[in-house]
């Protein structure tokens, strides 16, 4: 096929795509207009039903809790997959501590970076836990809290070195925390079944004051476990990748 013919086929394809795309755009609802009924219904009933003013978390951990279990296990499987793919292979070895080339690929952190990381680690840990534990108020949630917590570990890595990162997040402990997080969420669902209720039914008292610490029933509890799982999964993935940069394969030497 000659280049000229190819160009015509390409142009015909682009024209067709553009036509369908523009046609699709004209059918979109106007800016800020929500056509579906579910969002409006949830907005009206969610706070009264769950006593959680963080409606996003109420939706995530109660109304569509079953979907969220699936999503949590997607992250769990992803972290497991990274750990399996990046496992130590035969003849791979850790770089020696006294290796003169040890820090040329990743230069040591500057004082400014170390100070900033040191300064932010504490507040980030507090914020992460606050978000994960206060799913019944807005804005918050286990996923957000978990990734903020994981960021604290990344800050530790930035401020010091890999050894410190590993000392505050040993691989075994991280694995266990991730398993507890993922298992805890599933176990809450099973507990509901054991009481003769549907899976993940909110079986705890929902309190009387909307958005209070004691309100929301299982919503903040599930959020706590999701926070554990997400934080551990991110720390595990980052840790595996950091280790990869330190690994030396036989033929690289």
């Amino acid at each position, binding site marked *: 096929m000659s280049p000229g013919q190819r160009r015509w086929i390409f142009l015909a394809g682009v024209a067709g795509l553009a036509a369908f795309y523009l046609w699709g755009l004209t059918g979109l609802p*106007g*800016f*800020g*207009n*929500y056509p579906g009924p579910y969002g409006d219904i949830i*907005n009206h009933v969610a706070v009264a039903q769950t006593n959680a003013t*963080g409606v*996003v*978390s109420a939706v995530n951990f109660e109304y569509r809790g079953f979907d969220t279990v699936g999503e949590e296990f997607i992250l769990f499987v992803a972290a497991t997959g990274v750990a399996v793919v990046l496992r130590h292979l035969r003849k791979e070895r850790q770089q020696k501590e006294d290796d003169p080339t040890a820090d040329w*690929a*990743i230069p040591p952190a500057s004082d400014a970076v170390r100070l900033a990381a040191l300064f932010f680690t504490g507040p980030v840990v507090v914020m992460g836990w606050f*978000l994960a534990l206060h799913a019944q108020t*807005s*804005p*918050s*949630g286990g*996923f*957000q809290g978990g*990734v*903020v917590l*994981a*960021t604290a570990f*990344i800050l530790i890595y930035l401020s010091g070195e890999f050894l410190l990162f590993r000392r505050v997040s040993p691989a075994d402990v991280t694995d266990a925390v991730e398993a507890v997080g993922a298992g805890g969420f599933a176990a809450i669902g099973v507990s509901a079944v054991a009481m003769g209720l549907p899976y993940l039914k909110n079986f705890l008292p929902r309190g009387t004051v909307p958005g209070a610490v004691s309100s929301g029933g299982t919503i903040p509890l599930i959020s706590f476990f999701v926070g554990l799982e997400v934080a551990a999964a*991110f720390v595990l*993935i*980052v840790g595996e*990748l*950091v280790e*990869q*940069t330190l690994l030396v394969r036989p033929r*690289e030497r």
Partner: protein
Amino acid sequence: MASTHLATVVTPYTIPAPLMDVLQLTLLVLVAAGATAVALIREPVRQVVMLSVYGVLLAVLFLAFQAPDVTLSELTVGAVALPVLLLLALAKVKRREK
């Protein structure tokens, strides 16, 4: 744009609708520019830094469009975690090249 928002709850912190329109439009333009910059920059490390900036822009955009929950996720995943993973991968690749 802000005039079409559902409930009109007015608090001491409510930003006037025309100002909100300007803010949202500015952010939309900035996000489009940021995404284009990420695609156009060829040097990988600079590209990752721009990706992080783009993550911050997206996070602020979500905040301006009343999605603070998504802002928190985008800020940590898009502006921190993803760039860190990419930088680590780049460090590994560069080491092997030498």
